[in-house]
């Protein structure tokens, strides 16, 4: 469940530009696609929901929690447990292997580690063979799938994906979308994707246009 109320954000160095965001209201397990031209503040909205940015005004509610009312410590903790982020170009820890990256994410979530889930997830994402490889040894598609794994391993309440398909070919794009949908279902979480990728549109009913 995600709800935002009259969110507004201003970047410090460009005082003139203020982003006004439409209110979002997603019920349990409901997915949404955020569309809009670049520069309109899609990523900003995503980071506001994740609590990485603090809005000028307005609130973000996830479940029954108002993100803006959390202290820094609580926010870190909340993000660790309930937010999963997937980036356009994957961010990983280069010195660790695929498996170690996943374990790191799991550990930081401070939830009980679930070996079975980890194994299943790796299998589902077809990463079993490369699980002990360093990230730079993986192909683009494998990396994007790892990115998804990192976003969902800890069963977050909210999965936020920032242009997850823009660097992928059609086949991989299809795969990523279906995997995201499937994982969101398994985790019983809200999936929010920002994209300008036309290929994605048809897969989701709920469009929010900025």
């Amino acid at each position, binding site marked *: 469940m995600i709800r935002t109320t009259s969110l507004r954000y201003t970047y410090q160095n460009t005082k003139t530009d203020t982003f006004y965001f439409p209110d979002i209201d997603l019920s349990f397990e409901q997915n949404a696609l955020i569309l809009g031209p670049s520069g309109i503040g899609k990523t900003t909205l995503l980071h506001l929901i994740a609590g990485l940015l603090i809005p000028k005004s307005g609130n973000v509610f996830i479940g029954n929690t108002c993100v803006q009312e959390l202290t820094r410590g609580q926010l870190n903790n909340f993000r660790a447990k309930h937010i999963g982020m997937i980036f356009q170009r994957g961010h990983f820890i280069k010195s660790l292997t695929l498996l170690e990256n996943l374990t790191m994410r799991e550990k930081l*979530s401070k939830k009980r580690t679930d070996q079975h889930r980890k194994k299943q997830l790796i299998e589902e994402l077809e990463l079993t063979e490369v699980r002990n490889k360093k990230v730079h040894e993986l192909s683009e598609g494998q990396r994007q799938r790892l990115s998804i794994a990192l976003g969902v391993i800890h069963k977050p309440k909210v999965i936020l994906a920032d242009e997850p398909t823009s660097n992928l070919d059609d086949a991989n794009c299809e795969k990523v979308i279906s995997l995201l949908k499937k994982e969101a279902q398994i985790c019983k979480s809200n999936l929010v994707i920002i994209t300008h990728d036309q290929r994605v549109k048809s897969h989701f009913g709920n469009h929010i246009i900025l």
Partner: protein
Amino acid sequence: MLYLAYKNLISKPLNTVLSVLLLLLSISLATLVLQARDQLSQHLEKNIKPFDMVIGAKGSPLQLVLSSVLHIDNPTGNISLEEALKIGRNPMVKEMVPVSYGDNYKGHRILGTSTEYLAKYNATLTDGKLFEKAFEVVIGNDVAKKINLQIGDTFTSAHGLAENGLETHDENPFVVTGILKPTGKVIDQLIITNLKSIWEVHEHNDEHDHHEEEHEEEDKEITSLLVKFRNPLGALQLSRFINEKTTMQAALPKFEIERLMEFLGIGFQVINSISIAILLVAGLSIFLNLIKTVRERKQELALLRTYGATKYELIKLVFLEALFLSLLGSVLGWFLGRIGIWFFSIFTEGLYGYHFVFSFPTNKELFILAIVILTTLLAAILASLSLFKLNVSKTISNA
């Protein structure tokens, strides 16, 4: 976090190895010098402690002390026993021990003295008995070990103090009557007999050379007289008297050794300065290394923040890496320093019969370790300052 820190270091082996090497070098140098100085001064102090003053022939006072007390230099010459004893009768003198040299056996000095000499160094026998007659000797523990002499063995001495003396006194063999327990002092390296043995060896020689038949007691010579005073003031008064009014000289071991350590101190200081300079470079290298790491891995660190890691956890990560480096460098450096001491020891053992002992980290070394770790932690703080204002949102989206 610990594992990640370790992995991060491993993934940049070149930087890590460079930092560790620099640290290792400076720490090993510093601990080596510290140990060498400490052990040397301890060794010297232990050996000069029994005596306040040495009376010997005129010459360099340092040489007199080195030869008569520490047994490493050549004696300055001989003095008349009678004249020396006259001084010894002074009421300020508590104890006195005459010593006389002349010969060696396989590089170990044969020292003619009284049994009091042994008592002054708290040397006791492991086996056998003390020398009673001329040509009976007790040998120091190291001598027994090194040249494998046992009680009842006989040997003939070589003239002079150099090992491969051409002239040997074959006519008068010495017999070993006792072996001393190890003392950790110079006495371990000596072959000790009574004064008479030394006189008789050379009398015999003199007979050959000069056909002098008679040797009166008054003509007897010794190398030096070792003196212990009732109170330290006595040494000052008496030494002035001896140096001004007699043909002999008096040297105060404590004073001479202090002077010697001062000379050596300059050398030690130079090496110390070098090790401090290397330490600074090592610290700088670690600092730059960390800054580079933080900068290069900004995105990874931001990523960890989106995973819910706190700023302090990120700083902890940088700290752990720094700590890892400094500990590794320090511990390896310490071991290298000890290995250095060990090699140094082999060298001095051959030259002066003195060996260094292995010791556990001293307080001073722990102090150096603490400084190194503090420095690296300071470097880590400076390097991680930028983490406080890390803009996670911006860093992560500027992929």
